[in-house]
């Protein structure tokens, strides 16, 4: 049985259903991210696990224990907030020791654990400071230490990196992941940043309008998105309009070029959208990419190591990346170009 189980969770605020039939099993020690745009219900699910919201229906089980009816302070869950939420009247050490004091542990035990946690987050010398004397990144690390100090069963992170600047965000992200691995704590991480979710998680739950659209490893989510929403929200995506020639065998035509997808197509429509990631498209002909489409260079963006090129193929704008080569200037805008793709890299998306 999984360590953390969410069964048929539903949440409505008045007439609006914010979370619809949400199901998830998280194994012990797993790092799961909830990814989605704002208002998709990911924070609401997290807050139901924490106990700050009561599910309209459904059940939450941690380690076999039903916690749906328990108050937040009875659940033994650690939480880190976007706004840090350190207690301004307490020093860093007192903040980290807060949960242990509530548990009634002895002063010695608290001191030892606080030192241990401050060392873990790399701020052993800042115990006497007040939160307002720390930078945002330091405050969030202290908040992490405070959440972890009472040895919670589950760690919940509610967009903990959103308030930080870009550089700290990346370094703290890696730090959170390594601390999580070291402690082996079951973690749920809420974010709207796909790069964050892809880089940090064991599994990702992509949420959209209160529904878990897809659950899978970052590799699966990115390479085999099952819905149009997942494909568009995670990573950059090119869409190609195609006309269905034979739905059963997967014969379609893109701008007059016949394409054999070799798989049955969903739905009975005469047209559909094919999706492809920028990195599966090459400029010019390449071995193994035997579908050749002709078009015209529409835009060229020189980004340093990478050049992003947009090619107009029969009215579809296809974005692709090539590496910079000092001996080869980027293609000229308006010139004719061929792009090559492998048929198996074309995604057929359900609506």
């Amino acid at each position, binding site marked *: 049985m999984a360590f953390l189980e969410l069964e048929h969770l539903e949440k409505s605020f008045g007439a609006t259903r914010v979370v619809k039939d949400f199901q998830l099993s998280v194994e012990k020690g797993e790092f799961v991210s909830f990814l989605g745009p704002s208002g998709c219900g990911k924070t609401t699910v997290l807050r139901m696990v*924490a*106990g*700050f919201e009561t599910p309209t229906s459904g059940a939450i089980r941690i380690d076999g224990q039903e916690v749906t009816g328990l*108050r*937040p*302070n*009875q*659940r*033994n*869950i*650690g*939480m880190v*907030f976007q*706004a840090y*939420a*350190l*207690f*301004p*009247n307490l020093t860093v050490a007192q903040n980290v020791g*807060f*949960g242990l004091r*509530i*548990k009634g542990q002895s002063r010695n035990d608290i001191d030892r654990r606080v030192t241990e946690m401050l060392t873990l987050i790399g701020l052993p010398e800042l115990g006497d400071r*007040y*939160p*307002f004397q720390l930078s945002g990144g330091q405050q969030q690390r202290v*908040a992490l230490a*405070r*959440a972890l100090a*009472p040895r919670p069963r589950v760690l*919940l992170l509610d967009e903990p990196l959103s308030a930080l600047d870009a550089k700290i965000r990346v370094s703290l992200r890696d730090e959170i992941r390594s601390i999580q691995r070291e402690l082996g704590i079951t973690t749920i991480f809420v974010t709207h940043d796909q790069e964050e979710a892809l880089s940090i998680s064991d599994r990702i739950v992509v949420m959209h309008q209160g529904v878990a659209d897809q659950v899978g490893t970052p590799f699966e989510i990115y390479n085999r998105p099952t819905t149009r929403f997942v494909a568009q929200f995670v990573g950059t995506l090119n869409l190609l309009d195609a006309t269905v020639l034979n739905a059963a065998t997967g014969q379609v035509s893109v701008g007059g070029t016949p394409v054999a997808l070799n798989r049955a197509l969903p739905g009975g429509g005469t047209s559909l959208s094919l999706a492809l990631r920028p990195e599966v498209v090459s400029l010019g002909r390449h071995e193994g990419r035997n579908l050749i489409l002709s078009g015209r260079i529409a835009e060229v963006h020189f980004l340093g190591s990478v050049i992003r090129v947009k090619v107009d193929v029969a009215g579809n704008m296809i974005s692709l990346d090539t590496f910079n080569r000092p001996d080869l200037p980027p293609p000229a805008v308006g010139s004719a170009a061929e792009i090559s793709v492998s048929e198996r890299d074309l995604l057929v998306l359900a609506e």
Partner: protein
Amino acid sequence: MMGRRFWSWLAVFGSFLYFFLPLLGMFMFSLRMKRGELSFEAYRVVLTDPQFQTTFLYSMVLALITIVFGTLISVPTAYWVRLKLPKLRPVIEFITLLPLVIPPIVIVFGYIRLYNTSSVLPLTGSWLGTNLLVLFGYTILSLPYMYRAVDTGLRAIDVGTLTEAAQSLGAGWVTILARVILPNVLVSVLSGAFLTFAIVIGEYVFAALLNLNTFGPYMFWMGGNRAYEPSALAVIAFAITWACMGLIQLVSRFSKFSQVKR
């Protein structure tokens, strides 16, 4: 430009005279108890008067209990309203402002009508009951200052998130209030407390009508019976009030962790 500046200074000077001349006159008068010389004789008499000591102590104790009462009522209420009932805020604010609109004499008359010796709850019949009544009255009088101060203090912190953070760490409501909310609004509570102190020390109507020997009636009695001592007493009362104001400033300046957004 010059003309305008002249008029501003004249206004400042005028109001200075308006405020300080009577004080100065009163102070000078209070020094003339001994004929032909300036002395602090009146102050000596007042301060050594056992009546002064007992009534002042009495009022001080009442003021301190009122502050505790007021804090216990205002902090949880303001906190709860901010956290759970934000829509009720205008209503609660209106209620806390009522004591400024309803004269104390009305309140105390109501008390006497409701709680007299022939009523269901004869509070005025006993020493304890009367003191409870006057405490409730004072708490109501201080409510506008106390509640507003606390509410303003709560505005400076993220009440919702701090509460959730404390809850996730295992804290119950009492712990949250005592260890998280109260310490963070302590400066505001103290400024409310000093105002309360000043109000209760000088309060006359409640004490007189409930027949309690507090500092207010003592001052009144002095004024009717002595010449120099009332002036000395008034100067002392001023000094206490100003000391309270000074303490508010001091406390808010020296609190360790409050430099954040101030």
